[in-house]
């Protein structure tokens, strides 16, 4: 890992790496739940980006970054709930949770 | 003299730390406080196991353990030696890593919860601005360890017990959070020492504890119900009831790991009682204004032990609730009542001082309670007793 001249660059690179890992997970795995896990990792990476910019930015007392991150956490939780509900419902119907098998609209 | 006795532990720590150079002093001070917490609470746990067994025994019209030591008070030593020397059996098909980590995660997260409890005047380990949120975050992390224990044992009954325990804990966690929010609304801060300071005032002789207000009493009762369910204590102990699921999610644990689960459960009980006394019972403040000569840490631990006594009493007296009864109770009665309590707290705040707000809040809460209880009754068909015999 290259030495960073600023701490902000370090946090941004970690967030970028986590985002790439999440994206790889969402694209590469077969199971629907792992795709959702990848999406959650991507959202978390974006949150890290927001908080890092809030901390090192020019106006941290305006709390914009922190608010954005808190709302993002709330929305991500809601989206995970609905997504996992959908996966459970599809499993009940087709008895599988693999995305490769869900390639037809006929149910 | 009374003030000195009150701060005796702070003075002891400062005196011990003064032997070291200035650079090391803050870290050593914190380390000494941590050592004190790690020694005191497991010691209280040992005492509580004896109290529980003797208390339950007396409620059930029998003596508790009375062989080891005077009146059986050395029983925890015997229990400790037994659990340390028992063979540690791990099932062959169990997931060894997760099986090992589950009790560790439980004990670590429960110990972290003690860091924000104010155990006396100036006696809080870390005065965080968002102390209450930290406490609940640690409580949320405990649920995951319960699941890890149940799943890694590769045992259907363990998994079933773990799922039931997790479902119960998530439902009642919402109630716990909401009943604390009403306290936060009135005291204006999430920091626990400030909540205690807000209750540490006296009008005449009587203290301003939140339990002595209508919304505080309702909130405390909801908090107590949720606390009993969070720590899987009777009457909510279906996940670990001996007659139901052997030992639930810690069936496959033996020896020291089981002792760690036991320790974790009782420590969770202590920390949730500690939070309950901080939020509703005034923390370390004395009940009557002329009793402040008794040290503050005496009052805190006295109130916590009183709560533990009530837990033991409930365990010996009430029958166990079934899983669906438990969940119905949580979502259909306790949660709506807690939401109503939140609104009544807001009403209390905005009505200003005076006798009117006492009357209005009490009337609202009282009628809501009676109405909701009747609504729950109507759903049950209580008819004449019928019998079914095996053919």
């Amino acid at each position: 890992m290259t030495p960073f001249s600023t701490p902000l660059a370090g946090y941004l690179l970690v967030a970028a790496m986590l985002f790439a890992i999440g994206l790889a997970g969402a694209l590469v795995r077969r199971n629907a739940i792992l795709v959702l896990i990848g999406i959650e990792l991507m959202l978390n990476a974006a949150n890290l980006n927001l908080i890092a910019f809030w901390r090192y930015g020019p106006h941290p007392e305006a709390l914009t970054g922190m608010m954005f991150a808190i709302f993002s956490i709330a929305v991500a939780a809601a989206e995970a709930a609905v997504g996992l509900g959908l996966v459970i419902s599809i499993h009940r119907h087709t008895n599988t949770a693999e995305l490769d098998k869900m390639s037809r609209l006929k149910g | 003299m009374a003030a000195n006795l009150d701060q005796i532990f702070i003075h002891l720590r400062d005196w011990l730390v003064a032997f070291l150079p200035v650079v090391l002093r803050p870290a050593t001070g914190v380390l000494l406080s941590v050592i004190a917490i790690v020694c005191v609470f497991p010691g209280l746990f040992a005492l509580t196991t004896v109290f529980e067994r003797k208390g339950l025994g007396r409620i059930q019209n029998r003596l508790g353990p009375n062989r080891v030591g005077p009146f059986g008070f050395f029983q925890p030593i015997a229990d400790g030696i037994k659990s340390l020397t028992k063979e540690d059996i791990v099932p062959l098909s169990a997931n060894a890593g997760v099986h090992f980590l589950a009790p560790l995660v439980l004990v670590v997260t429960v110990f972290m919860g003690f860091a924000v409890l104010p155990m006396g005047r100036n006696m809080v380990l870390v005065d965080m601005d968002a102390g209450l949120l930290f406490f609940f975050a640690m409580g949320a992390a405990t649920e995951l360890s319960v699941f890890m224990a149940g799943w890694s044992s590769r045992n259907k009954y363990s998994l079933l017990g773990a799922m039931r325990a997790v479902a119960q804990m998530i439902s009642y966690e919402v109630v716990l959070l909401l009943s604390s929010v009403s306290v936060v609304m009135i005291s204006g801060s999430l920091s626990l020492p400030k909540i205690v300071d807000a209750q540490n005032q006296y009008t005449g002789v009587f203290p301003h504890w939140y339990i002595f207000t209508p919304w505080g009493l309702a909130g405390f009762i909801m908090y107590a119900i949720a606390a009993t369910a969070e720590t899987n204590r009777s009457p909510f102990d279906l996940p670990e009831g001996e007659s139901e699921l052997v030992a639930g999610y810690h069936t496959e644990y033996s020896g020291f790991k089981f002792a760690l689960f036991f320790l974790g459960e009782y420590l969770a009980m202590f920390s949730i009682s500690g939070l309950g006394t901080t939020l509703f019972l005034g923390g370390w403040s004395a009940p009557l204004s002329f009793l402040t000569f008794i040290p503050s840490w005496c009052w805190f631990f006295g109130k916590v032990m009183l709560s533990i006594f009530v837990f033991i009493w409930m365990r010996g007296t009430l029958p166990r609730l079934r899983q669906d009864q438990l969940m119905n109770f949580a979502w259909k009665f306790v949660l709506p009542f807690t939401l109503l309590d939140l609104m009544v707290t807001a009403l209390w705040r905005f009505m200003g001082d005076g006798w009117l707000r006492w009357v209005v809040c009490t009337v609202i809460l009282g009628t809501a309670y009676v109405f909701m209880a009747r609504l729950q009754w109507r759903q049950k068909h209580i008819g004449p007793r019928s019998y079914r015999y095996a053919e």
Partner: protein
Amino acid sequence: MNFVFYLLAALTLGGGLAAVLLKHLVHSALATTVAFAGLALLFLQLDAQFAGFAQILVYIGAVAILIVFAILLTRGSDLPKGGVFSATWFVGLVIAAGVFAVLGWAVLISVEALPQQASVPAVTVHDIGIALVGRYVLPLEIVALLLTAATIGAVIVAMHEKGAPK
């Protein structure tokens, strides 16, 4: 950069990698929890205490448990035949690497131009509360509506249909 940051970054990225690469789903979910915990600690290092504790409470206390419940309800313990990676895994990997390359390049060429506030922002929970009901009251209400809709929707989607043959 100090040692603690490297440790936390290694923990988070290790958890993320393990979550994506492990074959068994429950191990994957537990590795995700480790990644969430690492992120919460990174938030605490960035002096965002409220966000860090909210992350633990919401992600580890709720989302991780939700993922685990979903894995158990869809019988994720049986490993699928044909491997856990889809047939087009290489393309996905290339895309992810490409995205990381673009983001990393953007960060590295603009290192000097990035803002450098070094002092700790003095933010209390009181300020966050006032901001939530002052400046950000509209997002707060919308998120409340969204959460209600999501809860009702998730319950309806995952509910057993009445009278449907199993």
